Each structure stands twice: as C-alpha cells, then as structure tokens.
C-alpha cells in the first residue's frame, strides 16, 4: 500500500523530490542562458554538510570523510577534485571554472562522500568503500552553493563505525589530539562474521550487530593502536572474559584494548555486547574481594589490567572502604610507556613505568586498587620500602578480617583475608628492605 501510494505521489511530484533548489548564495548568474561562451564562464564553489542517520529522526555530521566532486557529462562523469569534511560535516570545494563546454550551461555537479580518510576506511564484504552520492545538480549557474546532504538510512551502521561520534575516527582523533600520534589507517569490514576481530594487517571484522557498540569498535581499534606501536600483538588466547584469569599476555593485550575506549570517552563504563544482550561494566568498581561477583584477581585478568590503567588515568579518587587509588595521571604517561617500550604483559608495563621516573607510590596503589599487588614484601603503603610505618599499619589492623568495617586489604600481606601475626611477621621479617617493584 505504501509503495503504491509512494508511486502515486511520486508520479505527480517526482521532480519535487530531486529539484530541491540549490540556492546560490552570492553572485549573479552569468550562465543563466543556454550556450555560454567558455571564455566568459565564471566560477562555482560547492560547500555543504554531510550527515548520517543516528535514528529515524536525527542526523549527525560526518567528520573527516573524503568528499569528491564530479561533473556529469554525456560521456560519463569527470572527476573535479576532492576535499574532506570537518568536525561539523562541512566541506568546501572551489572556486572552479564553471565551464561545462561549448554550448552548455553550467556544470552538472555530483558530490560524493566516502567512508575513508587517513584515519579509517569502512568497506563492505565486497571490498567496496561505503559512499553516497547526490543526485546530479544540473546546469548550475555561477555562484556558491551550500547543501545539507543526508546519506542513506540503510548505510547508517557503516557511518556509525566510521564516525567521530561512536567509531574509528573518534579513536584516531583522540590520539592525535592528546599525544600527537598519527595512527596508521585502519580498515573495518562490516558486516562480516559473527564476532568482532582484529587482524594484524590493520583490518577489523565487525558482525552486523557490532556497529552500534562504540566500546566494541574502539576495543578493536585499541588492538590496532597496539599493533601499530609494537608491530605485533602479544599472544592472545582465543577465549577470554573480562573478569576471569586468562594469562599475562592475553590480559595485557585485551586489558589495553578494554581501557582504550574508556580513555577516549573519559568514561569508566565499558559496554560489552553480543547479538542479543549487552552489559555495562563499570571498571571503576571492581576491587579486592570481588570473587562474589565472579572476578578473579591479579594481572592475568584483563578487566583488572583495564581497571588499573583507568585508575592511573582517571581523576576520580576511589571511595571508602577501597580508597587506595588517589592517582590522577591522565593518558600521556601511559602512552609514553606504550610508545617507547613494547610490553608483553602488564607487569612489564609496570617495570617500564617504575624505571621511567613517573610517580611510583600513587601508581602502585592505583594498581593495587584493582587487585594487582606489585608491592614488595612487607611494603604495606606501597612506598617501595618496608619501614616502621608499614609495621604500624599492619599492627593496627591486627585481628581484622574481610567484611569488617575497618578492613584494609593492604595489611593482609599473605592474602588470606585476615590480618594475623603472620602478616606482622612478614612485615617484620622484611623490615628495612627497599624494593625495585
């Protein structure tokens, strides 16, 4: 019924759809009459905004996409040049001569937008880059044109992946703006397969459902960033979960990739999804004693690694009773380690941090907040030496155990969830030691 009606209406007004006037905003037309002299041709400037669909009622700007301008001739289309959209989806091209040949009116302009830039490219499984083109705007008089152009609703998943709002372009800009890194181009193929995957040739495969989940897109982009820095990805187990022990290399590679979207969006909530469900995981929250929520501890757990990186990065001090993280160091120092020292494990990352001259004690406790304990034996407060302060801390916790209101995990040096003489003995036995953590 709808199609019949559409046909009916289009029959009566088909030109209305396409004749949407391209309004010159300056300059009188010199080509308003047919058959202009090429020598007399003026110029034309094409500007405008490209948009993609967010939902049925909202269009968002396409950022940093290649725009190509063509002139349609009877023999085919002629490439005139290209430019890129800016943050607002805006592009401008020209002025160029508005000479369409002897006996012709002005140029017959086609504008395309292509999901490609030096940052990212989004392709269909056929290998074709997603793109959109305007209807031909025929016989344009001289002047400057400003068009608001929307892409096809059916392609919106591809533009989400490409976008600055939710996708690969956002990841690229984040590194460019924060640390000045020019990440090599990544290619995303969508829809492809049934699970998101990164390949070390710089390709991401995304299944159809994955286009709507920015944390998943940027998780895969995080792998691309690591690969571009290291030239490889540390060996990764095929099956891994965010809260369970995998191994040290998997936890590092995946933990970094889990952390990357958190930094990009400055938000500790990682949204994990599959084809039927999603879950919001606040990586600020997991700490010691989270086994009841299914979390393992240590640096072989990717969610712990991501949480530790987040607590180094973020400006939020963690709250009582788990107040160990008061570190707010931002992204740059994490990046400097990533950039200069290929690490295969989070422990290697910590060793590189330790020798870098960056703050140690606060970083150590931010990591400790996430159930990763890199302190030396007896070093309760994480200042890299075992002193009387550590002894006092341990002794003051004597008799407490997990679940008590004044429970302080730092004092539990033997990790048995209670502070006993054993912990005091550990502190005492290591008294005077200094640590290269």
């Amino acid at each position, binding site marked *: 019924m709808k199609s019949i009606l559409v046909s009916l209406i289009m029959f009566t007004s088909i030109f209305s759809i396409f004749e949407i006037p391209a309004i010159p905003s300056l300059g009188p037309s010199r080509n308003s009459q047919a058959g202009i002299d090429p020598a007399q041709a003026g110029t034309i400037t094409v500007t405008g905004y490209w948009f993609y669909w967010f939902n049925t009622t909202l269009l968002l700007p396409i950022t940093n996409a290649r725009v190509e301008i063509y002139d349609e001739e009877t023999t085919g289309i002629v490439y005139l040049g290209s430019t890129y959209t800016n943050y607002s989806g805006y592009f401008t091209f020209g002025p160029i001569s508005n000479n369409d040949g002897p006996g012709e009116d002005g140029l017959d302009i086609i504008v395309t937008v292509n999901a490609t830039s030096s940052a990212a490219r989004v392709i269909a499984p056929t290998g074709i880059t997603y793109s959109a083109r305007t209807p031909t705007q025929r016989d344009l008089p001289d002047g400057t044109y400003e068009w608001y152009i929307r892409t096809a609703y059916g392609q919106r998943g591809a533009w989400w992946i490409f976008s600055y709002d939710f996708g690969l372009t956002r990841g690229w800009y984040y590194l460019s703006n924060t640390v000045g890194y020019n990440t090599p181009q990544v290619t995303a193929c969508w829809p492809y397969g049934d699970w998101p995957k990164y390949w070390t040739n710089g390709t991401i495969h995304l299944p159809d459902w994955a286009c709507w989940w920015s944390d998943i897109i940027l998780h895969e982009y995080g792998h691309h960033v690591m690969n571009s820095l290291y030239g490889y990805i540390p060996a990764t187990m095929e099956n891994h979960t965010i809260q369970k022990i995998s191994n040290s290399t998997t936890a590092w590679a995946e933990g970094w990739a889990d952390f990357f979207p958190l930094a990009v969006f400055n938000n500790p909530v990682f949204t994990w999804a599959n084809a039927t469900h999603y*879950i919001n995981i606040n990586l600020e929250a997991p700490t010691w004693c989270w086994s009841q929520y299914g979390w393992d501890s240590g640096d072989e757990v990717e969610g712990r690694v991501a949480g530790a990186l987040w607590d180094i990065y973020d400006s939020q001090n963690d709250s009582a009773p788990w107040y160990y993280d008061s570190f707010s160091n931002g992204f740059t120092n994490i990046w400097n380690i990533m950039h200069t020292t290929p690490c295969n494990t989070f422990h290697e990352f910590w060793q590189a941090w330790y020798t870098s001259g960056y703050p140690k004690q606060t970083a150590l406790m931010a990591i400790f907040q996430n159930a990763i304990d890199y302190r030396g034996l007896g070093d309760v407060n994480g200042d890299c030496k075992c002193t009387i302060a550590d002894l006092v801390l341990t002794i003051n916790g004597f008799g407490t155990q997990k679940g008590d*209101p004044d429970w302080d995990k730092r004092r539990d040096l033997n990790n048995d969830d209670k502070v006993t003489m054993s912990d005091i003995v550990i502190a005492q036995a290591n008294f005077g030691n200094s640590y290269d953590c």
Partner: protein
Amino acid sequence: MVIMTKLLISGVIGVAIACLIFIGVVASPWSELAKSFFSPRAYPDTFTVPIADNTTLSVNLTISNFTEPLGLDSEADVTVKVISRKDMPNVKVQITLSPLYISQGAWPNITWTPIGPQGIDFVDGNSTWIINLVANVSISFTTRIKAVEVGLGVIVATVIEWETSSTFYKSEDALYIRVLQDNIVLQDPNEIIILP
C-alpha cells in the same frame, strides 16, 4: 657480628611490635581504629540487558486517502499494522510525529535543531494502543493527520513488548513527509538527497 646485629634488630623490633600491639589492640579497641576511613559501600550491580528482537514483532506504516488538492490543509489516514510470529499480550503501539533534526557537535555533547517545521499534526483519534496479539494475525489502527504548514515531518510507529526481563521485542517504522504549499511528497530515507 652480622648475625648478632640482625638478632639485636629483630629483638628490638619484636619488643616494639609487642608494645604497638598492646597500644593498638588492647589499649584501643581495634574496631574503632581508622574508623573514619570506612563506610558501607553499595556495590554496583552489573546485569545483562536484552537487545530488542526486531524480527519476531514487526510494524508497518502506510499513509493513504489524501484529501485533494495536495498541499497545505490536506488530510490523510496513517495506518499502523502490527503482526507477531507468536502470541503477545500487552503490546504497546505508538505513533509519534516529529520534525527531522540535524546535529552539530560530537556525541553525547550534541545540540540538535529541526531542519524546519514538522509540517503535520494529528487531526483526532488515538496515537497509542495497548493490544493483545495472536500469532500471525495482524492488527491495524488508523489515525488521521493534516498538513498544517510547509515542512518535513517524520511519522514514527513503535511497537514494544517486554516478554520477560531478558526478552524484549521492539520494532519501528517511519514515514517522511514533505509538505509543500501545493504538494505533498513522501521521501525515502534511503534516498540520498539534498535537504531543503
């Protein structure tokens, strides 16, 4: 000599520990130590949320019976047809009218403005229904709209049903209507167009 020194240090530390234990544990009730640092904490829950199944439940919008002449003041019937592949009680069907918006700025810090007026409005009748669906039996509802000004309107029909807390059905259809002074045009959202 070294051993003697270590033993001496150990002895001194042992005495110090004993004193500190006495001070910290006996003289002061341990439950009050460092009390000000601790307070009960509510652990955030994490739970999985279903993503809408848009294949079991479907909705289709049509528009018909435009009054002549087409253009301002034309009226038309908007019909929403709902069908499910399984029995579903308490399905909510809703039709909304909206302009088409464009945004500037990056998500989520965006500001959006309508491209222009939505151009259409409801004439009368309901725009929301709660229904019980029988498998493979479609139900249709009709409401009437009117072209009230030049603009671009979006008619959105949404059907939603929460079967359980972990099963969620939702489907959506939309029509795009451009109202001109003397014409009315349906736009295809897959058409790449220069907006008015």
